[in-house]
């Protein structure tokens, strides 16, 4: 066993050493003309708008004379709308589509058609589950580490022992499902989490009212529930409000992934003592650099390729551990917010 571990470390060192020696970071040339599309799950959600700000920043920095379009479906039409925009982008001859996928594998045929027409498909935030029709996925954080961060927050909030339920977005959201799977794995793997009992997973559809009602139903269903873990910005907020409205904050805490500006009051009053997130502006920025490099042919998209993404530094394309055979670029890291740092981040 020890030998195996040593071997692993040695080979890992070799890989990283050879990677470093072989490829210096490619620095992308600006000024090339390429039209690109940034396609969020749907319009009107703050985090996607922040991603757009980041992409626009990179667009200006790289002096791309082409157009960067921020288009998305309306909320009630997310899946069909994404497929339609993907199809249209291919016929328009867009250089790249940057997709936060909300359509599961249903997007694959249109994404493949777009690739055949010469359009690069770079996913961000939420990948294509099978990896088909996708050139590379820009991952905000390591999906495995999301499980770890959530498990650790649960551990500290519950004080080592108690019941926890998950309130997710939609049952089709690839990122949500991957994170929940990772959380379950982490909980099962380490003995320090053995006191935490995961009792249920419900879906709030990323709508305030559905999430709010689901949170209350969870409390009614499990009288001993200690924590609602919601890995979605809408769900965590609605659950916190529901617990506050019904005076349940002493009994049931809320945690998960949330925006500091939206969670400020709940963190300060103790309803949601800890939550986490990454920077969506950075995610949009990095995604743009990746897509630009690939659409202009400066990046080949091979595993091991390293490039410089402006102010954010160097990134390497690697195999996605969660989706064998697919490629990803890992952004990272997480920020965990508590009453100590939430105020500064909210403003």
């Amino acid at each position, binding site marked *: 066993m020890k030998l195996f571990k040593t071997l692993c470390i040695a080979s890992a060192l070799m890989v990283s050493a050879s990677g470093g020696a072989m490829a210096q970071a490619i620095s992308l040339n600006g000024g090339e003309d390429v039209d690109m599309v940034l396609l969020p799950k749907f319009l*009107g959600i703050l985090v996607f708008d922040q991603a757009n700000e980041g992409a626009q920043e990179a667009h200006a920095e790289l002096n791309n004379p082409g157009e960067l379009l921020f288009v998305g479906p309306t909320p009630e039409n997310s899946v069909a709308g994404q497929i339609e925009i993907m199809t249209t982008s291919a016929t328009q001859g867009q250089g790249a589509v940057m997709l936060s996928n909300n359509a599961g594998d249903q997007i694959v045929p249109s994404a493949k058609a777009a690739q055949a027409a010469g359009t690069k498909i770079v996913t961000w935030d939420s990948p294509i589950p099978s990896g088909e029709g996708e050139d590379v996925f820009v991952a905000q954080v390591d999906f495995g580490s999301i499980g770890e961060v959530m498990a650790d927050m649960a551990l500290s909030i519950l004080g080592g022992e108690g019941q926890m339920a998950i309130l997710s977005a939609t049952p089709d959201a690839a990122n949500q499902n991957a994170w929940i799977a990772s959380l379950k794995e982490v909980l099962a793997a380490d003995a320090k989490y053995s006191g935490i009992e995961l009792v249920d997973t419900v879906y709030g559809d990323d709508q305030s009212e559905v999430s709010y*009602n689901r949170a209350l139903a969870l409390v009614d269903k499990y009288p001993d529930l200690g924590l609602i873990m919601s890995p979605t910005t809408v769900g965590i907020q*609605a659950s916190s*409000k529901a617990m506050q*409205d019904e005076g349940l904050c002493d009994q049931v805490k809320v945690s998960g992934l949330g925006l500091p500006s939206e969670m400020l*009051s709940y963190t300060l009053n103790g309803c949601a003592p800890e939550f986490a997130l990454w920077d969506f502006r950075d995610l949009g920025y990095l995604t743009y650099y990746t897509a630009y490099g690939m659409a202009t042919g400066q990046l080949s998209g091979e595993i091991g390729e390293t490039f410089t993404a402006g102010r954010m530094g160097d990134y390497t394309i690697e195999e996605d551990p969660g989706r064998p055979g697919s490629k990803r670029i890992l952004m990272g890291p997480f920020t965990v917010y508590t009453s100590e740092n939430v105020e500064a981040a909210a403003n």
Partner: protein
Amino acid sequence: MGHLFSRISPQTLRILALVFVLAAIIFFFSTQVPNYLNGRLFNRISSSVAIMALIATGQTLVILTRNIDLSIGSIVGFTAFATGSLISANPDMAAPLLVLYAMVVGAAFGAVNGILVAYVKIPAIIVTLATMALFRSALVEFSNAKSITSSELPLWLVNFPNTVLLKFGQFQLRAGFAAALVVVLLVHFALARFRPARRFYAVGSNPEAAEMAGINAKATVFAAFVFAGALAGLAGFMFLARFGNITVVAGLGFELKSVAAAVLGGVNIFGGSGTVIGAFIGAILVDLIDTSLVRWELVSEFSREAVLGALILVSVTADAVLMRRLIGLRANREKKLARAAINAQNRSPEVSTPKQAGETST
């Protein structure tokens, strides 16, 4: 018993049948879900149904006139957001003004539907299917990808829906529910007793006849959409107060829920008959089933929608069968009474004939 039975109007009979179905569903879930029957359940359902009750009331007005409003969820979403941004920009604004603003914005959207349906003569299902998307896109534009959060709202607004007015043990009568109940009752009695409001029924049961009788059918349909819009606006205000966090998906899917509530509540989808109280009980039914299913161990997340659909179908069927039974029973009884009357007539023709003549002449 029979005497009382024949004096109850079919509308009341329908409401009684609905109450019976409601009780049956509560009984069923109380055998399935632990800790089910208590004040907490009442508080949950009453607070959450307050919003849908208003929307179902508006939807009922439109359906009565043989139309449908599929844009009502988008109107709720837009007014919730618009009202939220107004109050966060002017935190000192008076409450009645804010409510008025929400209703006027909603009524304006309703007027767009009303003009297109009543005066341009485009079928309501087409018009409101289009405006559902249009109003939602208007919200996406208007919101500029921002969302409203409860921290931007004044305390009175956030506290309003959960303020406890009366308390019996665990049972709480909260302000949000009380307000919705008052509106529902007002509209119900207006429809039942107020002469101009009877036009909705007249136009819905027979537009040509209504027109002949001197009723302006176009204006009536237009008014139905405007009132529905105003009620949706009010619901938007309540939505804002209750949830505080408003994104562009606010009110998504409410149009179908409100149609389900109205139809469950015995509002005839072909217009002309139904009551607001019925739609209100329908809204309670939908909410109750939805909430209870989440707590029911037997139903997984993925089959819940299907079970909800099936239960709605069963409720409507049970209600329809029950109604037919009751009406049949009554018709039989009336037939018997009529036969008895005819028999009596045959026995003493000289007494009853002049009386009959007198009846027809008045």
